[in-house]
């Protein structure tokens, strides 16, 4: 229960920080940073949030399921532009993934030598 309380408290703090900075970076991203800092500085004990955090992050896929079903409602918008959407997504997502992945992978190998 303490873990849930801490997470919700950081979410509120995150939302407030987001509000202060003009709402550009979402509150949950701020909350993630606050959670990280609180754990690093031992302001929050690891044990108190471990169970809830592990449960939540392990099942993150579930949280996206309702939004995935939302694609059903956006059918028309997708149908109108589907070639452009599909090409953009497949090609560019793989490019980003390859660039980021390979930069980290290559440099890492370089270091070990």
């Amino acid at each position, binding site marked *: 229960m303490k873990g849930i309380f801490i*997470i919700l408290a*950081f*979410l509120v703090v995150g939302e407030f920080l987001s509000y202060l900075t003009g709402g*550009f*970076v*979402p509150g949950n*991203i701020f*909350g*993630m*940073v606050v*959670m*990280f800092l609180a*754990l*690093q500085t031992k302001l929050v004990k*690891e044990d108190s949030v*471990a169970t*809830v*955090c592990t449960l*939540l*992050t*392990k*099942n*993150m*896929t*579930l*949280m*996206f*399921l*309702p*939004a*995935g*079903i*939302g694609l*059903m409602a956006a059918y028309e*918008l*997708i149908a109108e*532009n589907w*070639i*452009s*959407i599909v*090409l*953009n*997504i497949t*090609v*560019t*997502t*793989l*490019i*980003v*993934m*390859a*660039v*980021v*992945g*390979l*930069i*980290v*992978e290559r440099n*890492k190998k370089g*270091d070990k030598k």
Partner: protein
Amino acid sequence: MKDINILHSEPFILLITIGAYYLGNLIHRRFKYPFTNPLLIAITVLIPLLLVLDIDYPTYEKGSHAISMLLSPSVIALGYALHKQIGHLKGNVCRILLAITAGSIVGVLSVVGVCYMMGTPHLLMVSMEPKSVTIPIALGITERMGGLAPLTAITVFICGIFGNIVGPWFLKTIGVTSPLAQGLALGAASHGVGTARAMQLGQLQGAIAGMAIGLMGVWTAVVVPLVEYCLS
């Protein structure tokens, strides 16, 4: 009339949603292919089910609200994952920043490239430029650049699902095997949905992916206006 009410009730919608997710996980554990992805299975099971039971999207959205509400707390929980894995990051800060910077620039430019080749209208192009970024940030970028918010939300989300499904397989194929690189690539290219997948690969991958969402979001917010300025 009574059963119809049960079918449209919140517990029933939660039941089939979690049921579909559980089924997806079961199948995924049994058969490990890119297309036996839990999210993909759950969506392909749920959509026909909702159509057959005549549950429309507004009803479903309302019923599944309890699950969507857990998204923000789980993003915060990524802070814990990052804390647990921070030891692996030491000495890698420079290459992480370099990779994310390159990733955000390439991400936006590749959309511009594909759109020019296809002759896609500028409005669509702007709407798709922030597609590798977490939805709240992407919507912020689109709004400022005058893009279509619904189109942005859709592309961002499909981009996430796509990365979630083919990401691990694709990364392995091109020889990206270190957990650090895998996590960063999944989070950078496919934001939260990619992070969910990274979490399934391991705690380290998930933690790094969560960090990549934030970095990628902020960087892309800087890159999109710059690219648009250069194009005009």
